């Protein structure tokens, strides 16, 4: 970053302190979880580490790298197409794409099979869905569409003035992408890449479902087995640290890439159409994405219709819905608050190492294996002298909020950075305090993104089973637990309906919350 940038940033020691406090708290939490597990490890009997740890690390890294590279590629192409094209139902399509990432992985995997599997709608084409290709394809649906949603927001925020200039210069579709779009996208790519890599690396049931056998599996399986089957907690911690180490390397590499300030503007109706060849390509990209992504999700919805009356007639469904909505609302609010604190702290300093340190704990949390989180949380609460089952709701809220924090940071970070750098001088010359800066300058510009963050946090929490493996689930039932319970009791129709209803809730949240927030910010401005 050029030195002049430093002088443009408003002086905000409180924001830095807040960001640092949040980062330290998350890092301390992760350390405490591991410490609790190591403390209990003395009691374990120790089994044998599987002979295939090295192979699992290799195949997991390969799978995650492929998933990340392809997801970003697809995400850029799709964001490009969606930014240019206008059609009836566009909002719904964007919502559908964004919803993919928060849908439980298994639901997406079954949706994929409903389209491409042996007995699927397009099963006759004989597309292989099992093996490395199938796993990467499922991750593409989950993560590529999410990348497109985030990148689309960056493209939509390109100032109209820049577009007008470009149009008057008569830029070709390719030059337009290279000169105008790419600089707007670049800033978001490292953060997105880190997130997608982490998600793909820690993905577990989906990898085993589509992997096709021991040749394509995941390191999380070995960690899960060390805890559950072998009860070798020391080995589990060692493997978990290997996983975090690999993921940390990716986080650091992505953080080391030059941060690029992104632009900020409200989405405007585009008046600049690309040439016919480019538009044909855009429609093709969209059609392929719809066939590949949306069809799988539509299959989930269609599948769920059959059991609708049965599920809606059950009291347990409504209790679980109320619980899930409560947990989701609380953890979404917590995630947004944490993301604002950390992102504002990061935007207040030009020092790259400091920025990395502030953001890294949030990402590192995503690399902690789910089974280690469950075990660590249980032991931690117990060591505090609290009855674990009474603390379960609070634990799930916090765990789910932390789960969506990296996504929230990737969404809110770039615009807050851009504001600090492009409007920093104005803020200083007006002598605005931190609160006024937020209310008058930042909030109106990031409200829509904040809505997106809230939707993300809400839906992540809605779809995640959480860390409840060891906690009492008798009275604390969420929708995903109800779904996996139904699946485990042969009731696959009920499970399909619950999955479809969760998907509908997710879609509603993704379409409604960002729009609502933008309206709120306009009313205040």
């Amino acid at each position, binding site marked *: 970053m050029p030195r002049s940038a430093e002088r443009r940033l408003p002086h905000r020691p409180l924001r830095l302190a807040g960001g640092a406090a949040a980062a330290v708290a998350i890092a301390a939490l992760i350390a405490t979880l591991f410490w609790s597990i190591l403390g209990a490890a003395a*009691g374990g009997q120790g089994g*044998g580490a*599987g*002979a*295939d740890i090295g*192979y699992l690390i290799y195949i997991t890294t390969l799978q995650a790298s492929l998933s990340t590279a392809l997801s970003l590629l697809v995400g850029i192409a799709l964001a490009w197409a969606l930014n240019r094209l206008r059609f009836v139902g566009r909002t719904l399509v964007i919502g559908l794409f964004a919803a993919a990432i928060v849908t439980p992985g*298994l639901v997406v995997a*079954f949706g994929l*099979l409903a389209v491409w*599997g*042996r*007995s699927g709608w397009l099963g006759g084409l004989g597309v292989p869905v*099992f093996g490395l290709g199938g796993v990467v394809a499922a991750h593409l649906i989950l993560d590529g569409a999410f990348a497109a949603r985030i990148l689309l927001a960056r493209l939509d925020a390109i100032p109209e003035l820049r577009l007008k200039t470009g149009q008057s210069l008569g830029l070709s579709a390719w030059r337009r992408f290279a000169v105008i779009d790419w600089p707007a996208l670049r800033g978001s790519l490292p953060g997105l890449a880190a997130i997608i890599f982490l998600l793909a690396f820690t993905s*577990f*049931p989906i990898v*085993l*479902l*589509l*992997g*096709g*056998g*021991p*040749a394509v*599996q995941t390191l999380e*399986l070995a960690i*899960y*087995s060390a*805890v*559950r*089957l*072998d*009860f070798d907690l020391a080995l589990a911690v060692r493997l978990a640290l290997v996983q975090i180490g690999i993921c940390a390397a990716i986080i650091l590499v992505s953080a080391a890439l030059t941060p690029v300030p992104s632009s900020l503007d409200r989405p405007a109706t585009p008046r600049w159409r690309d040439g016919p060849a480019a538009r044909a390509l855009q429609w093709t990209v969209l059609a392929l994405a719809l066939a590949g992504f949306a069809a799988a999700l539509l299959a989930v919805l269609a599948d769920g219709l059959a059991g609708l009356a049965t599920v809606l007639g059950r009291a*347990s469904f409504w209790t679980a819905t*109320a*619980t899930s*909505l*409560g*947990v989701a*609302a*609380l953890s979404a*609010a917590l995630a947004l608050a944490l993301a604002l604190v950390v992102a504002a702290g990061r935007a207040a300093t030009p020092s790259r190492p400091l920025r990395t340190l502030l953001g890294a704990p949030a990402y590192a949390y995503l690399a902690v294996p789910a089974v280690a989180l469950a075990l660590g949380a*249980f032991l931690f609460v*117990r060591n505090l002298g609290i009855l674990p089952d*009474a603390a379960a*709701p609070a634990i799930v809220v916090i765990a789910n909020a932390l789960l969506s924090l990296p996504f929230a940071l990737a969404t809110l970070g770039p615009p807050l950075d851009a504001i600090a750098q492009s409007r920093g001088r104005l803020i200083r010359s007006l002598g605005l305090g931190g609160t006024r800066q937020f209310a008058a300058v930042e909030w109106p510009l990031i409200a829509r993104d904040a809505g997106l963050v809230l939707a993300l946090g809400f839906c992540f929490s809605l779809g995640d089973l959480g860390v*409840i*493996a*060891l*906690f*009492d*689930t*008798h009275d604390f039932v969420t929708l995903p*637990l109800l779904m*996996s*319970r139904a*699946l*485990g*009791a*042969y009731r*696959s129709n009920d499970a399909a309906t619950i999955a479809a209803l969760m998907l509908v809730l997710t879609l509603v949240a993704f379409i409604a919350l960002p729009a609502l927030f933008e309206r709120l910010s306009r009313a205040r401005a």
Partner: protein
Amino acid sequence: MLRPSLFALAALVCLALPASAEDKPTLTLYTYDAFAADWGPGPQLKAGFEQSCGCTVAFVAAEDSISALRRIQLEGATTRADALVGLDTFIAGEARATGLFAPHGLDLGGLALPAPWTDTDFVPFDYGYFAFVYDKTRLATPPASFEALIAEPDSFKIVVMDPRSSTPGLGLVVWIREAYGDHAPEIWAGLKPHILTMSRGWSEGYGLFLKGEADMALSYTTSPAYHAVAEGDDRYAAAEFTEGHIAQVEVSGILKSSPHQELARQFLAYMASPEGQKAIPETNWMYPVVDLGPDLPAAFGPAPGKVLPVDEAAVTADRNAWIEEALAALR
């Protein structure tokens, strides 16, 4: 939207706290989620036992039975559990070795199990045989042995579960080992082209089969009974293998640290009694451990013709080696 859900959450927190106002003792049973769930056997057994015990039965449900055992091991002598309901053949040896369980002291001579019950620590409450389930409308003649399965064309697919994350997955490793001994790796190598995938758990693997992605899935001989009784769908059947099948017996144990050992003993006896057993078949979809006569739906069918014994001590000692040789043959 926020306020009612906050209220719901607060209500849940209150529900999670034990109701200690009453004088009646509370019998706390650790079990797996599906056992305590609405459509599991838990609610019926609780209602039936509470009629006569002068106590309150409280379930603490973990994700699965191994997780419930791990929780007790982590809690040690301070555990609130009076008994653990739902251990199985493959983990019982390890549970025994923890020294946390007390002898049950019950006379179980009258039970009807694949083999006479001699275990002095654990009390059985149901059992099932592992088998490959198929759809009769899609597959007219299923393979009748592992060797016949291996001889099918490569396009014949089965779904199994990973032995490291799933009990049926581990069951298949033990089954092939008990049937073929040291030749087990050859069977696994023969199965390799037929294995569509090794899912993390039974539910998603069986789901793949129900969606028509595979010709057979690893499950239980009693699975078709669910489809026939609960769904009125008699398309499904379990393939009987000439090598014989192994049983997974589900058992319960009383904790040494429990202040309510006598009450726990009574509950375990109730669960194994004809009255308690009636709650099992149509909730857990496993065979009862007493002869229920006409109370057992005909769809449950007879046991497989040949049943292989399972050596608990060998399973406990060699489990990881068996898993490793199976995975090595597939890799």
